[in-house]
């Protein structure tokens, strides 16, 4: 029997007495007996923290995939980047961790200013003027972008490149059941979006990946032209690390930037909590989903920060709100601000550059192996797709024996067939490299794959 309750039996007795009651059950007496739970919950009695720690030790030991055990070459929107002790220490300060949404700005300047700094950083990386205070993850950000496009155009057709991560596309399809959006997927041909192959007329949004999820750097002029022609919003799903050196969404003429912010200080975390990045152009700000922090002054004219444009949000606008989001991922946004502050202007560029260098170094070694072929001949950034002589899932399992998490199997992400690639997905492996990977680790990967395929 363990809990975190302060009350002693005497406390409970005298509190009940104050209420003129005899038993705690009296507090629930007005609940219809017919539905009241008799006999309590069918869950084992509580045990102490150390006992639970022992249980969890059995779980963690059954996760050989952890990055401190298998060298991580898997990406797909979740990357094994350096997160220094200083970032963990600062973002882990209990004032950040145990605060609620900053409803009372007078005692929430810490979180509010950190979010303001986060918004500034995301705006700069996207080349767009406005960022919100975070959304759940990249997939949610994409869905919100589609809703924004719908709001802006009152149209339903969403033209989405298959270069967008399969999971994100699946999420978009799921929510389209409710919004009624008509999702049109644009196949990739040799790694790049074949915009011509679909009817984009009357589109609300044109959505492209940059780099796309196969790592390819697509020329986005065509997507931009299409968006302009149709009066649709151009939405880019971008890699925020690559964004530090690549043409920005703004420079490409995009209206909305969405991305996965896990790369900024959040651990791999088995997929969550992550950080949905969302930035947009000035003219979409009234349709912005979720919270946004603005600068203002207090009654003594000192600078202060506060959540603003609240009239867009669910608690005020209710069924007419731009989004239903309430709780978001603020702590990850604060973490991102700390991590980016630690990386700094040069550090972030350095990380991006090293990712690209590592990926190209590995790619060169691998393209040497017989039976292994590049899935396309496009320029890539930090990630690339290979066709293997056998099923990618099998190769990944075999590579684990060599201490390597070799990448992601496209079949596991997108199923047996996916518009992102011609033919079967079964033999497609997506490999990515971060700044943490050493030459030794990369060479070991190559040697291991040779053995596995031999």
């Amino acid at each position, binding site marked *: 029997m*363990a809990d975190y309750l302060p*009350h002693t039996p*005497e*406390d*409970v007795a005298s*509190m009940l007495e*104050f209420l003129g009651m005899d038993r705690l059950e009296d*507090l629930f007496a007005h609940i219809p007996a017919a539905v*009241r*739970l008799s006999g309590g*919950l*069918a*869950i084992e009695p509580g045990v102490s923290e150390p006992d639970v*720690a022992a249980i*969890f*030790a059995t779980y*963690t030991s*059954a996760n050989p*995939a952890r*990055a401190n055990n*298998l060298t991580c070459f*898997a990406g797909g929107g*979740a990357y094994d980047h350096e997160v220094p002790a*200083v970032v963990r220490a*600062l973002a882990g*300060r*209990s004032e950040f961790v145990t605060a*609620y*949404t900053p409803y009372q700005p007078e005692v929430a300047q810490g979180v509010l200013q*950190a979010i303001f700094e986060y918004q500034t950083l995301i705006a*700069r990386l996207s080349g767009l003027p406005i960022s919100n205070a975070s959304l*759940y*993850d990249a997939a949610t950000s994409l869905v919100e972008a589609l809703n924004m496009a719908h709001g802006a155009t009152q149209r339903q057709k969403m033209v989405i490149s298959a270069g967008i991560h399969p*999971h994100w596309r699946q999420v978009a399809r*799921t929510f389209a059941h*409710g919004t009624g959006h008509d999702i049109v997927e644009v196949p990739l041909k040799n790694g790049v979006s074949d915009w011509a192959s679909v009817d984009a007329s009357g589109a609300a949004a044109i959505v492209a990946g940059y780099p796309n999820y196969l790592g390819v750097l697509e020329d986005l002029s065509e997507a931009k032209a299409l968006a302009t022609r149709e009066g649709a919003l151009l939405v880019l799903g971008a890699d925020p690390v690559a964004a530090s050196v690549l043409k920005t969404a703004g420079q490409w003429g995009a209206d909305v930037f969405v991305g996965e912010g896990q790369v900024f200080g959040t651990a791999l975390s088995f*997929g*969550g909590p*992550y950080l949905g990045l969302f930035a947009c152009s000035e003219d979409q700000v009234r349709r912005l989903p979720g919270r*946004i922090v603005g600068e203002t*002054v*207090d009654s003594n004219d000192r600078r202060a920060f506060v959540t603003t444009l609240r009239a867009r*949000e669910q608690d005020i*606008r*209710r069924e007419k709100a731009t*989004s*239903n989001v309430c709780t978001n*991922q603020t702590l990850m946004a604060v973490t991102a*601000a*700390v991590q*980016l502050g630690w990386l*700094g*202007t040069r*550090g972030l560029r350095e990380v991006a550059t090293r990712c690209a260098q590592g990926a190209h*170094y590995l790619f060169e070694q691998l393209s040497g192996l017989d039976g292994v072929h590049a899935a396309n001949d496009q*320029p890539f950034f930090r990630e690339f797709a290979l066709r293997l002589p056998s099923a990618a899932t099998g190769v990944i399992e075999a590579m684990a024996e060599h201490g390597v998490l070799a990448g*992601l199997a496209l079949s*596991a992400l997108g199923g047996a067939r996916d518009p992102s690639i011609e033919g079967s997905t079964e033999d497609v492996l997506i490999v990515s490299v971060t*700044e943490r990977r050493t*030459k030794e680790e990369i060479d070991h990967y190559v040697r291991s794959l040779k053995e596995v395929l031999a």
Partner: protein
Amino acid sequence: MSTLAAPGGRAASAPLTGHETEPTLFEMSVPGRSAHQLRTTGVPAGSLDELVPAEHLNPDVVPIAEVSERDLVGHFTRLTHRQFSVDLGMYPLGSCTMKYNPKFCDAVAADPGLSAVHPGAPASLTQGWLEILATLEEKLCLITGMAAATLQPAAGAAGELTGLLLMRAFHEANGDERRRVIIPDSAHGTNPASVTLGGYEVATVSTNERGLVDLDALKATLGPDVAGIMLTNPNTVGLFEEEIIEIARAVHDVGGLLYYDGANLNAILGAVRPGDMGFDIVHMNLHKTFATPHGGGGPGAGPVAVAARLVEFLPGPKATRQGDGSFAWRTPERSIGRVHGWHGNALVLARALAYIDVHGGDGLTRVAQHAVLNANWLRHRLREILPAAYDRVCMHECTLQATGLKSKYGVRGLDVAKALLDEGFHAPTVYFPLIVDEALMFEPTETESVQTLEALAQAIERIAEHAQSDPESLRHAPHHTPVSRVDEARAARRLIATADAAR
């Protein structure tokens, strides 16, 4: 019980030092400074323009910030000294369940055996994670009285929308078109917003003088085009919907489904289960009931549990326990599809399981009992100054009214809330639910001691005295916080959302 013992929940720490606002990271930046240190990799270092076609490279350098590690630490540490938090003091924010969250759960989530696992790694290499997810699903179903659940939704609102899409899938599968979803006028804003995104129209049902759903009004609204109703029970004023059985029957009679908004689940753990009340779909806010700290606004987790007839529609893939004791990813046949980029907010889910394991069935029941006890004690203690909107036994929170202070001294609920900040307490939820005039909603939670509740009550008594003696100064409260009352109107009039925005 000695209410004389010093309160624990009061942030009595006085000013540390200095009076200036903290500069931004960008104001602290000096060209050439840096803090980062990266691993030595030995990877051949080709320049970017050899690796990336010129047309893709940004000719300009994107400015981030340039500070030393020391200044980074100083900056964010000082920001934390400008931030209230549960760990600093009582945070009786109604509807938010700001209980103390065990540090043990932080440690669980920080274990690399969980936190360093890539979500795309194959099930064979992540069996521990799959077991955590499958086990949590099982326990959440036992707690709510449902058949199965999805753990993907990242927060309550995401759970709501997921639930509405399940509702839609269910009706469509039965080939029946329905248009409207009913919600009470006291509902949380995410409910109507989710209804819209679910492709339904909101039909509002009024609240009766007892603060409950007006059953007759409900019956009047019900019809064959009603897809379902969204309720939170206890409802947003903190009262239990005593006619829930009749409500359920009525809705089911027209073929509608009952959706349970689990934000207030903390009140009924072990006492009554949504499933037993007749609900078909239930979302939970793990960040409220199951102890994930709120992180300044998130992350959370909003798993959705459903009755047997809806299981086949659940999002997938789901971590599933196999006959042989191993675990695999499985997607229900008629699944509505993914609602999260990966598997949901996994680390939040792991914390929740740890929290449930520590408490067990008995502990969770005590959690609800003490949460309700605290709310009622506070309601009764404050009855003179801030009478309850509905004066009877409440559940985990109580909706009080500042109407008296307003009429007598022109001091509004907001002023009382702001004055509480000066007293070292966080404010209650103000002006929610919208149907209650001058609402101050207090949710003390089960982790606050009676001494802390007494200290809060005494602070409110002092504020009431000020309302009489010096209403003007109350109207400008708070006076002792990092910043004084903030000009919200100005922020909205002229949006400055980044350090680069024109000023």
